């Protein structure tokens, strides 16, 4: 983490920068200064799309994208209140599908996501199209050895 010399190149190139409350480099700075709470409650780590633009361009080879992964993980462990709840709900719903079926199941995902966020109207513009084109399966794709995947979840669970 001391690799970051706060040049700001990461923030300058971050595609999501305009939607974030503080710049990605500032998240690093706050952690460098030991101000964990401030960093963890910002929306930035949640909005980060993991696109690796920052890591690819960082002049000092600091892997900021991976750092963001770690910040989110710590925030979840510490139970810090998440600013971008919808995003977290999405990730949770996505992982739940994998836990259940071994593969992602889009109908289940959307259903669960909507249950979590109560944002029932959000996806109407694409789903009908997808059904129409025969792309969204009504049934989930289950793998055979679901237990092995569930085990991975169980063993890595933080709760």
């Amino acid at each position, binding site marked *: 983490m001391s690799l970051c010399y706060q040049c700001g190149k990461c923030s300058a190139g971050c*595609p999501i920068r305009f939607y974030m409350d503080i710049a990605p480099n500032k998240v690093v700075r706050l952690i460098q200064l030991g101000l964990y709470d401030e960093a963890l409650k910002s929306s930035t780590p949640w909005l980060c799309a993991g696109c690796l*633009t920052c890591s690819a361009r960082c002049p000092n080879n600091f892997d900021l994208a991976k750092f963001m992964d770690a910040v989110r993980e710590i925030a979840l462990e510490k139970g810090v209140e998440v600013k971008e709840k919808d995003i977290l709900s999405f990730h949770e719903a996505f*992982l739940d599908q994998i836990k259940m079926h071994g593969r992602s199941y889009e109908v289940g995902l959307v259903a669960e996501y909507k249950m979590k966020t109560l944002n029932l109207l*959000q996806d109407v513009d694409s789903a009908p199209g*997808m059904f129409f084109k025969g792309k969204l399966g009504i049934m989930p794709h289950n*793998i*055979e050895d679901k237990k092995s995947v569930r085990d991975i979840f169980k063993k*890595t669970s933080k709760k």
Partner: protein
Amino acid sequence: MKPLTGGNMRFGYYPGCSQISSAKEYDLSLKKVIGNLGVSLDELDDWSCCGATSGHVTNHKLANGLAMRNIMLADHQGLDNIVAPCAACYNRLILSQYETFNHPEIKSEIEELLSTKFEKDIGIFNVLELFMKIGLGKIVENRKRELSNLNVACYYGCLLVRPADITKFDDAEEPTSMERIVEATGAKTVDWNHKVECCGAAHSIARRDIVVDLSKKIIDDAIAHGANVMVVACPMCHTNLDMRQRTMKKVYPGHKEFPVLYLTELVGLSLGMNEKELGIDLHYIDFKYDDNIIKNTVA
């Protein structure tokens, strides 16, 4: 079908979740096209989801575990390499494997998690590398259609070439491998700005607003540089850039529809296959290629 030099090529195949649902046409066209070029794919038995963005953004160990389960299956199945057509899967698999083999702590952690031992480094290829391995000459030789009316914007997105020191196949800022493949089909490529810009795929559902803005910028830049079609090599990119144009039209009233193809579909067209065979009719934005006539595309 002409045999390839050095006999038939076989690759392991990790389709990834999108390939069996929202990106059916990618799966379809991939299999068709490379079959035509004399290459066959062995699908990984009982593969599971790589965890995608949601995995690594929330739980590092889980993410590695989900990805490495598939590497383990590939090893058990005796595969030396696997093709992962989705950029996100490709990125997850290659990074997890890299971490596993370069960090002894992570290796032992994952080995314990999956009760296995990792010895073999499995080659992980994306579709671009797959075409490179097959050889561009093969495409040229088998070309049936003249695609020279197409001005193609090649879109790599963020996860295909990054991090360049691990993926090691192309330049991170100005990659050119996709252009070379497209040029092998006889189509033209345009030089544009946003070929490695992120479309925000991870937030496709939760923050539609962001994704629409970002995708709009990408499409506009391609149009501004004279492209009449865009080619992608990732189902997530495709979802955002094709399907999201529906929302785009609402948010940006003047938006004109712009066709987005999978790289495999474009290659398929040049090999003489039709839209239906390649699943192009499943796209949200229509694209018809009736020998030298481009209809319904922004010129």
